[in-house]
């Protein structure tokens, strides 16, 4: 008996060991961690494989600097150079990228030469570098925007606009800036809610740009009518929202973002945290996705984080795909040109790929660089195979190579069966090939009514053309035949009952 028990145990042990070693080893694609996610048609979170992975996190130690970054706020990328505004240390650091994960400090700039009184920076918050080598710097503490040449010689400065619409007593606090191809400067300044300040290349103030329209509804209006003067002054006044950051994309349009949003207004689509402004300052952002471009769709108040996503920076790839950075939960959202959410990733924390207080987002090619001011570091992300497949499929579709695009989306589908983009991409490729019925199935599975309607229209047309004979036959049998029979019967009845035949 004892022998038997022992044998059974030995057998069981053997089974456990063998099954343990034979267990399927899956590649870590990030599905289990829940780092990267997307929202489906029902606004439910669907985890996906990682689209971006961390290539490296760089602090002052890795870069060999004497002081750690102090609440760094500004970041700019041109070619393989990274320009970092170390705001708290009043310096600008030029970093060169020599390889995927190789970053070397090229220069640390604390002062410049030239014909001006103050030759140092005071809390520089943003920098912009033009292709011809000029530096534009928001020198916030000195209330000016500096223009320096490539040898760090003073060229000129942009000061507070001498305009009656601005409160002249208040300090001019330029915060973020962008420069266009002809040297015009677009600046976001603190406490200016009329939009961005726009300067001509020669430094003259040419007006405000892109002010958001003031919104109020009739309930506000009624309340204001009923309120006393004291109550009225205590109410919040209707002022346009201030912008937080801006980015000039490859086509010359300006992406702007604001953190001045309310949860309910985001849900209803009244608040637009991300805007793409044309030359007239009008929002031309395309929102053809299933939901508004507001970052996270649902926000629980767990873990000390509450409220909606606050978009603090935007960057747009040359292909038109743009990324938005949420400073509340440290999420990065990638959208395509049509406004579909491709993927969202990131989070708050101390691990690589998580942030404590992200302030700036830039891209170098398809890589993303996020500046974390509290963690005094910047993180470099490179696209994974999954992320690259997205870019490839979209590029192929834009180039008109629908067959290849469909094949690439198939690969995406293999990696992530939940991807709405993959299904719709396959469907669109099939539709271009005239395979409407198959395309309809793909669209139906992902609730894409617009594309389904398009495919269905073609399918129905083909179906009617094919079955036109049967359709006529059915119409004949149901409508025409009874009519003829009825007519014949009536004639027969009239003949039968006619007086002349009675006699």
């Amino acid at each position, binding site marked *: 008996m004892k022998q038997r028990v022992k044998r059974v145990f030995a057998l069981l042990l053997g089974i456990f060991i063998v099954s343990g070693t034979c267990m399927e080893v899956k590649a870590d694609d990030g599905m289990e961690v829940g780092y990267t996610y997307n929202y489906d048609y029902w606004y439910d979170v669907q985890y996906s494989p990682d689209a971006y992975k961390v290539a490296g996190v760089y602090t002052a130690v890795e870069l060999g600097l004497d002081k750690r970054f102090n609440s760094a706020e500004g970041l700019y990328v041109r070619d393989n150079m990274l320009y970092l505004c170390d705001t708290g240390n009043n310096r600008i650091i030029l970093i060169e990228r020599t390889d995927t994960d190789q970053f070397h400090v090229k220069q640390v700039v604390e002062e410049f030469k030239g014909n001006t009184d103050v030759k140092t920076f005071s809390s520089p918050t943003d920098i912009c570098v033009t292709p011809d080598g000029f530096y534009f710097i928001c020198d916030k503490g000195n209330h000016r925007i500096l223009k320096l040449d490539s040898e760090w010689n003073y060229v000129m400065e942009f000061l507070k606009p001498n305009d009656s619409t601005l409160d002249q007593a208040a300090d001019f606090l330029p915060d973020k800036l962008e420069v266009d191809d002809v040297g015009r400067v677009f600046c976001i300044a603190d406490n200016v809610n009329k939009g961005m300040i726009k300067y001509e290349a020669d430094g003259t103030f040419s007006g405000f740009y892109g002010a958001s329209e003031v919104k109020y509804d009739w309930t506000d209006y009624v309340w204001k009518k009923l309120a006393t003067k004291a109550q009225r002054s205590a109410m919040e006044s209707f002022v346009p929202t201030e912008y937080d950051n801006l980015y000039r994309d490859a086509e010359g349009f300006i992406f702007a973002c604001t953190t001045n949003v309310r949860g309910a207004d985001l849900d209803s689509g009244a608040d637009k945290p991300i805007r793409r402004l044309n030359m007239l300052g009008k929002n031309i952002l395309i929102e053809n996705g299933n939901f508004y471009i507001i970052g996270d769709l649902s926000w629980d108040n767990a873990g000390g984080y509450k409220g909606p996503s606050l978009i603090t920076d935007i960057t747009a790839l040359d292909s038109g795909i743009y990324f938005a950075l949420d400073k509340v939960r440290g999420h990065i959202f990638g959208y395509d040109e049509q406004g579909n959410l491709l993927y969202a990733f990131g989070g708050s924390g101390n691990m690589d790929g998580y942030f404590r207080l992200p302030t700036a987002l830039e891209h170098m090619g398809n890589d993303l660089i996020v500046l974390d001011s509290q963690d005094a570091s910047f993180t470099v992300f490179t696209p994974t195979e999954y992320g690259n497949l997205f870019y490839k499929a979209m590029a192929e579709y834009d180039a008109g190579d629908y067959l290849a695009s469909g094949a690439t989306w198939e690969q995406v589908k293999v990696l992530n069966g939940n991807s709405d983009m993959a299904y719709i991409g396959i469907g669109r490729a099939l539709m271009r090939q005239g395979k409407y019925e198959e395309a309809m199935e793909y669209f139906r599975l992902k609730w894409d009514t617009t594309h389904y*309607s398009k495919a*269905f229209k073609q399918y129905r047309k083909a179906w009617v053309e094919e079955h036109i004979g049967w359709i006529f036959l059915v119409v004949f049998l149901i409508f025409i035949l009874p009519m003829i029979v009825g007519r014949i019967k009536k004639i027969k009845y009239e003949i039968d009952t006619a007086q002349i035949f009675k006699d």
Partner: protein
Amino acid sequence: MLALLKKKETYIHYLETLKYALYVITHPLDGFWDLTHEKRGSIAAANTIVILTLITRVAKLQFTSFLFLQVYWEGINIFLYIASVLLPLALFCVGNWGLTTLFDGKGRMSQIYMGTAYALTPYPLIQIPMIILSNVVTKEEGAFYVFAGSLSIIWAAMLIISAMMQIHEYTLSKTLFFLVASLFAMLVIVFILLLFFSMISQGIAYFVSIAKEIMFRM
């Protein structure tokens, strides 16, 4: 009962009363008067119409093209969904009867039920063809579908008003007033039901805890 079911006349009468629903919806004032006073309607036909309405409502979920109705199946409880029609119907009949008997209403409960049920006829009548239609049109051509959907509801609402008018022999304004009052009556019934069940469960819990206490002491 069984003898009644075996007779052929029963079925002829049933089909006639059911067919009469088509007359009622096109001639509401005349139709609802005859429905009760001339006994041209039957409870069996009324039940049939209610069941058809329920089937239509469920079938609509399943068979309407997703272009017009996107169903989150995880959030659907079929019993709750059916109850969302039956419960208001029952509450309305009871609430309306309870009020109108106090204010010269001539209708009996069965007549109120019959009238309300007959008034629901446009719903299955319009919605079933619309379910089929939704599958052969595109999103851009869907305006007709939306229009027909609201038409069926408005038509049914107008039929309910005329049904109540004829059954209780009320004027239009009095009917409208008592329809609104019925809604409040329904709310009161729901409130009392909740109160009742809550009290009962409290009472039972009291005796259960006493029994437990005795058992622990023994």
